[in-house]
């Protein structure tokens, strides 16, 4: 049971990472794959345990409210713990079941968002409005999405490798045409941050584990979009090597 819980925690975190990126398709895929693995274990029993404990919790909370007890939470905790013991319900199975229910709820929300997103896209095409930002790109080593805000561009990316292996010297070489001044911000944290300055652009790159967020400030010239795409591609390609 212990190992089963570990894979569920990892799966939920992976689904959340994909939601953060806006890759709902991948989030659904990850949730489905892990739900299938979970089915190999006693997952129905676990879900039943979680639901049974939820009912017990609900019942005692209601009772405590009706009785207008002073220390409601303590009374509920005492009653619930006792009932769990009496009925010999397994706390680990309860946790496993709760995580499974959470994963399935996330999956349902993603399916909904995915549908809404595709409808929005269709509406955009119908109105012949060109799509600005909000696009998801996939390559062999990284995935990223871009969002345009009135004052900046924001990029979210998931790399195949961790940020600790970033090679800034190589990035300096690759971006030498843009005359950037590149500086890493020293922080006593597991994340890494570096900033790129030029006369026309300010870029901040923040990464932790395999997640990267890039914020770009640049004047809104006609070629801004093209330049930004090129810089993003160069940064991500270099740091993911």
């Amino acid at each position, binding site marked *: 049971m*212990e190992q089963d*819980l*570990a894979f*569920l*925690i*990892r799966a*939920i*975190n*992976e689904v959340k990472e994909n*939601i*953060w990126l806006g890759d709902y398709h991948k989030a659904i895929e990850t949730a489905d794959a892990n739900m299938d693995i979970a089915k190999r274990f006693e997952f129905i029993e676990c879900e039943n345990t*979680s639901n049974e*404990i*939820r009912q017990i*919790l*609900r019942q005692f909370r209601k009772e405590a409210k009706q009785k207008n007890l002073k220390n409601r*939470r*303590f009374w*509920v*905790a*005492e009653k*619930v*713990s006792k009932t*769990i*013991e009496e009925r*010999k*319900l*397994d*706390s*680990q199975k*309860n*946790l496993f*079941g*709760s*995580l499974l*229910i*959470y994963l399935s*709820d996330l999956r*349902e*929300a993603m*399916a*909904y*968002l995915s549908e*809404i997103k595709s409808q929005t896209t269709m509406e955009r095409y119908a109105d012949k409005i060109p799509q600005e930002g909000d696009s998801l790109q996939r390559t062999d080593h990284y995935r990223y999405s871009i969002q345009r805000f009135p004052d900046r561009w924001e990029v979210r990316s998931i790399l195949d490798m961790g940020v600790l292996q970033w090679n800034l010297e190589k990035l300096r070489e690759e971006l030498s045409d843009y005359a950037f001044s590149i500086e890493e911000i020293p922080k*006593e*944290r*597991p994340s890494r941050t570096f900033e790129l300055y030029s006369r026309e652009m300010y870029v901040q790159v923040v990464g*932790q*584990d395999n997640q990267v967020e890039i914020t770009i400030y640049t004047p809104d010239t006609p070629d801004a979009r093209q330049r930004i795409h090129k810089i993003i591609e160069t940064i991500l390609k270099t740091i993911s090597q």
Partner: protein
Amino acid sequence: MRFSEKQVKRIDENFHDYSLGTHFSLRQPIQNPPRRLRYLIEKFFSGDVSGDIGEALFAYFLIDVMNLTSSQIGHTKPVKRGGYLTTDFVVWDNFHRLTSVLQKSNYGLPLLGEVKAFTGQIDSSRIGHGLAQLKMAIANSTLIGLLFLVVRNQQRQGYDTYLVKVER
């Protein structure tokens, strides 16, 4: 993300506003939320943003101080809000990195984490609520609970943290 439970992201940037107690207004979405889910705007909100700070500090403590990775930490508060019996976090410390803190080298997994944060006076009843939640989640098992307390310090320039081990 409208569906995210807490916007811990960018807490560094907004730290000043959080500390001042600024409340941000949220936009009401047009579409109905999916089944069993509620929009953040409709969700329970105590009005005290210190919960965000407390949860972020707990994650920092586990990752930065105890060398756990983010994939070993499950934020289960949304399930708890859904009425299921869990704690704010479940921590998969498979390399037993918390041995020194727990003063125990052999312990069952996962560790159950409950966070209580205070920007003003310490409210002992809220500490009691955290202990009660851990008592229920541990119930008849040998699991260990961690009550992480975050208290704004007297100079109001930072937070002091305390970790309480809870076991049956």
